[in-house]
């Protein structure tokens, strides 16, 4: 069997990582599978299965009705086969049983990738679908974790759970930054979102840990339409990590997530993402379409930083944004987007300056290899009342082949004369003389390219939490394997 698998390792990754698990806090739902297609009945049923209150069902229906009137956006610089929205199953309960008894049964190539990424053994088991032992029992980890957080009054749970247990908070903030009318995919997500994470940090509380590690495994299984809502109350701080460096494969081709962040006065949210969805094979077949809406709202003196490392997906369409509504608020966007083979990425940010003395920083590093296409699209808008707003944008592209593309689309709208907006952009081919210099010191070309690319991305990596940064560097190396001769 192992022989057979070796011939097509991505198939193995698919088999192993598409298996769905629910660990820890996720509300247990019985095994139910819906028929394909989308209509009001499906939405009502979805809401019913999840035992949602009436207001939630109504909200979903409103979103659905609005979605029907919308059209799929065509402006991103990406090409893909049209999605048939009636050919999707909008709800299916997770399978729960591990498929393997031990890691010995798992494909060695997948384990090799985990090894390269430095993923801890117990986590490898979870990702590969091996039964975990009592030491790493997910429920107990979740419980200790939750106790620590509960002491500080922090709420960290699944979206489904939040709807049940914290309806006031959800009602108040859900859709407040990304209304369902926002765009085609946000409307669809609002109608049919399956699950996601909810975070609330009370006034003046500094969240004592990165909301990450164990929980990123959990986040893997939230399905196709993920919904995340993070509220940082006045003077609070939280650092949230989304995603996983391990290769992720899902039968669902379309992923349309919505993430909303709310930083109230003097609060700070740091949101880091590593996205490594299946990018399709070397010929460009298969792969995930990732259409995400991420937006944060900053009140007075608040700060939101988005840091993302995007290496996966066949098509990525994603613009984490900041609405700098409060005076003196700060928005940051640090991004590394890698495309190889036939991948396409159209990603960037929007910084909307509304308050006075608002500041934003954009650092985008695009790396293209193979026959891929990598675009940065960014909007900096300085509104009329945004006195003394400042923006600095730096968009650098590095090309690793002659057949790839890199594009920069900066949109700048300034309605206040006191604004200072700076934009720098560079495009470079990976430099042969740099490679030779490293070669001459005994470093192989492959390692040299990795070093140069990592150096190129350093400004972004240094924004990531330490252990994530290390994994991200390794991930970059794996994503670019064999891309330079």
């Amino acid at each position: 069997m192992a022989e057979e698998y070796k011939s097509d390792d991505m198939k193995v990754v698919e088999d192993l990582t598409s298996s769905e698990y629910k660990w820890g806090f996720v509300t247990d739902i019985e095994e139910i599978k819906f028929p394909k297609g989308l209509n009001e009945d499906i939405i009502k049923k979805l809401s019913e299965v999840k035992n949602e209150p009436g207001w939630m069902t109504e909200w979903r229906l409103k979103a659905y009705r609005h979605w029907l009137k919308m059209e799929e956006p065509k402006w991103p610089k990406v090409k893909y086969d049209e999605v048939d929205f009636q050919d999707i199953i909008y709800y299916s309960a997770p399978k729960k049983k591990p498929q393997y008894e031990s890691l010995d049964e798992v494909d060695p190539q997948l384990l090799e990738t985990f090894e390269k990424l430095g993923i801890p053994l117990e986590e490898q088991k979870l990702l590969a679908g091996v039964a975990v032992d009592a030491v790493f029992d997910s429920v107990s980890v979740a419980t200790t974790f939750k106790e620590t957080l509960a002491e500080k009054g922090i709420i960290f749970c699944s979206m489904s759970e939040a709807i049940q247990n914290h309806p006031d908070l959800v009602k108040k903030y859900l859709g407040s930054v990304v209304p369902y009318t926002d765009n085609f995919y946000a409307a669809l997500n609002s109608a049919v979102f399956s699950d996601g994470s909810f975070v609330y940090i009370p006034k003046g509380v500094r969240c004592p840990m990165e909301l990450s590690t164990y929980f990123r495994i959990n986040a893997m299984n939230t399905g196709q339409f993920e919904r995340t809502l993070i509220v940082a109350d006045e003077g609070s701080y939280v650092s949230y990590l989304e995603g996983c460096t391990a290769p992720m494969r899902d039968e669902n081709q379309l992923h349309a997530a919505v993430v909303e962040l709310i930083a109230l006065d003097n609060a700070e949210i740091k949101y880091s993402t590593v996205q490594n969805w299946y990018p399709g094979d070397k010929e460009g077949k298969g792969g995930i379409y990732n259409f995400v809406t991420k937006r944060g709202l900053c009140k007075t003196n608040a700060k939101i930083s988005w840091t993302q490392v995007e290496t996966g997906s066949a098509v990525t369409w994603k613009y984490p944004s900041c609405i700098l509504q409060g005076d003196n608020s700060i928005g940051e966007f640090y991004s590394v987007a890698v495309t190889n083979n036939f991948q396409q990425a159209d990603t960037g940010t929007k910084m909307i300056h509304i308050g006075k003395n608002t500041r934003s920083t954009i650092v985008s590093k695009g790396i293209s290899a193979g026959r891929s296409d990598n675009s940065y699209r960014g909007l900096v808008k300085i509104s009329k009342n945004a006195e003394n707003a400042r923006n600095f944008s730096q968009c650098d592209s590095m090309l690793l082949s002659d057949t790839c593309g890199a594009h920069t689309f900066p949109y700048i709208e300034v309605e206040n004369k006191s604004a200072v907006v700076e934009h720098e952009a560079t495009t470079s081919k990976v430099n042969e003389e740099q490679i030779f210099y490293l070669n001459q010191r005994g470093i192989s070309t492959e390692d040299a390219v990795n070093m140069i690319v990592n150096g190129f991305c350093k400004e972004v990596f240094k924004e990531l939490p330490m252990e994530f940064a290390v994994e991200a560097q390794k991930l970059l190396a794996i994503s670019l394997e064999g891309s330079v001769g």
Partner: protein
Amino acid sequence: MITIKNLHAKVEGKEILKGVNLQVNAGEIHAIMGPNGSGKSTLANVLAGHEGYEVTAGEVIFEGKDLIDMPPEDRAREGLFLAFQYPVEIPGITNTVFLQTAINEIRKYRGLPELGAKEFLDLMREKSKILNIDSSLISRSVNVGFSGGEKKKNEIFQLLMIDPKLAILDETDSGLDIDALKIVAKGINVFHNDKNAVIVVTHYQRLLDYIVPDFVHVLYDGKIIKSGDKNLALQLEKEGYDQLIKEAAEIEA
């Protein structure tokens, strides 16, 4: 150490090296001089294995191994070091990480264990002292924003850290002030012993006041047209290349 026989090399279709012969033994210092554009850097790059240069004839034997088909990183691991005339900048990679990677790659190739963090740092401290290099320079990205002189000094620092068998120094002296020249020369002399060898490419006698060569060669139009001892450099300093070039042309004709 290294034997170069009838070496011909092309760049962008143009023949630059037209039959270079050179024998360098352990313990020796050779100086290569010659007018601008005569092919000195080309020779250095060809020896180091730069892919932009195509070897069309001849052979290079380094420590008993044929270099021509060896990739550049293996030549480095075998013990060949080139101090570049124009060291490149590599943003985002600190000198420390760069050198640690380089040294450990070379050690791995030779079947030696990796150098631990402490040993490595001790080594850095020791070598940077010899060259009077500020530690802040070492923690910065490789050559980024370094002054011309600092870049050259950094090449010699790498030479001391890596401790190769053969050092080819391409105009390491140009762009240095008097004090820096003395420090760089000191570094080269600390490196040099009877088990290794140095090839210095230079335009000026002043470096050779500090690093006394056993042989001096004049490269002109892709060939060594004259070899001699250290007095040849002194003669060139006085007379320039004109006379030599004329003589060479007469012999050719």
